[in-house]
């Protein structure tokens, strides 16, 4: 409507294909650098605590989003244990392809943190996962770690 003339043959309804051709390299930032290095070197999650708000963020960040205090000097090591805050059994990849094996994606509330880490669960049957399940991070061997969130292979039910 609104046009004086329209396409009236299917064959004339054409399209043009294209893309946005880009490549990125991201720095993790001042806080992120330390967060990733803590995974890499110490197998621990680094958080940041805002004393005024009583909130512990993880990953560590340089500012408290609630009160805008600078918390760059209040980083805390949170270890690698926590509980499942929420989970999903995921059957598709991010580009929409059906996975052969579904993965379990979870929000992990690390002990001592208020925030959550998004990661995968492993060494567990989907049917056995529940909210509140205690879990721990499984790290790749040191030689395979690169300073990435993927240095953590997954979380698994905590032992003991």
């Amino acid at each position: 409507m609104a046009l004086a003339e329209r396409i009236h043959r299917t064959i004339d309804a054409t399209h043009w294909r294209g893309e946005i051709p880009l490549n990125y390299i991201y720095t993790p930032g001042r806080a992120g650098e330390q967060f990733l290095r803590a995974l890499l070197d110490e197998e621990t999650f680094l958080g940041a605590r805002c004393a005024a708000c009583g909130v512990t963020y993880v990953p560590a960040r340089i500012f408290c989003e609630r009160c805008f205090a600078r918390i760059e000097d209040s980083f805390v090591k949170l270890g690698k244990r926590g509980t499942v805050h929420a989970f999903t059994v995921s059957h598709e990849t991010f580009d929409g392809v059906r996975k052969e094996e579904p993965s379990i994606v979870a929000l992990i509330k690390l002990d001592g943190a208020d925030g959550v880490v998004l990661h995968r669960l492993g060494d567990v049957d989907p049917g056995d996962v529940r909210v509140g399940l205690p879990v721990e991070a499984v790290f790749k061997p040191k030689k395979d770690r690169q300073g990435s969130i993927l240095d953590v292979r997954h979380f698994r039910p905590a032992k003991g």
Partner: protein
Amino acid sequence: MEITKEMVERTATALKLEDITKRKVLTTPWQPKVQYAWDDGPAIGRYLAELKNGRIIARTCRKCRRIMIPPRMFCELCWRPSDDWTFVKDTGVVNTFVISHVDWKAGRLDIKGGERPLTPAVIEIDGASAGMGILHMLDEVDPWQIKIGMKVQAVWKPQAERQGAITDIRYFKPLAPERKRGK
């Protein structure tokens, strides 16, 4: 309050290129694959189809009497549907131009090694309303001989290679008299 050097000192940490390429800082790469198929619609669809036929088509507005290229189904100035199709010529006049030593990736052309600079131009198409041009490339001319106001003509791909795209015109070249002044 003045903004002083001391105040801004810690606001941004300047890295060197090699800090990134040699991973002195940690980095995470990503190459998005964002692809589209944009519907042409009647105006651009016909424009491309006629390019495949070796012709340039425009749309007219009866009210402002403009002959519009690229064609559009409405006149953006009169705010009414456009009226008719009309073919325009494949010749035109250089409105403005560039002698580019860089390509779209910001890569440098090897000018000293004899590579020809890219010479894009806005070309006012003959038969379209005054000042109505398109972006295209100039070639078969010494870049430094290009002048604003120069008459040019489309050089088409052979019919079999045309696919209904703006690149069915390979480039524009000077009309015959000007050509003698080229290399």
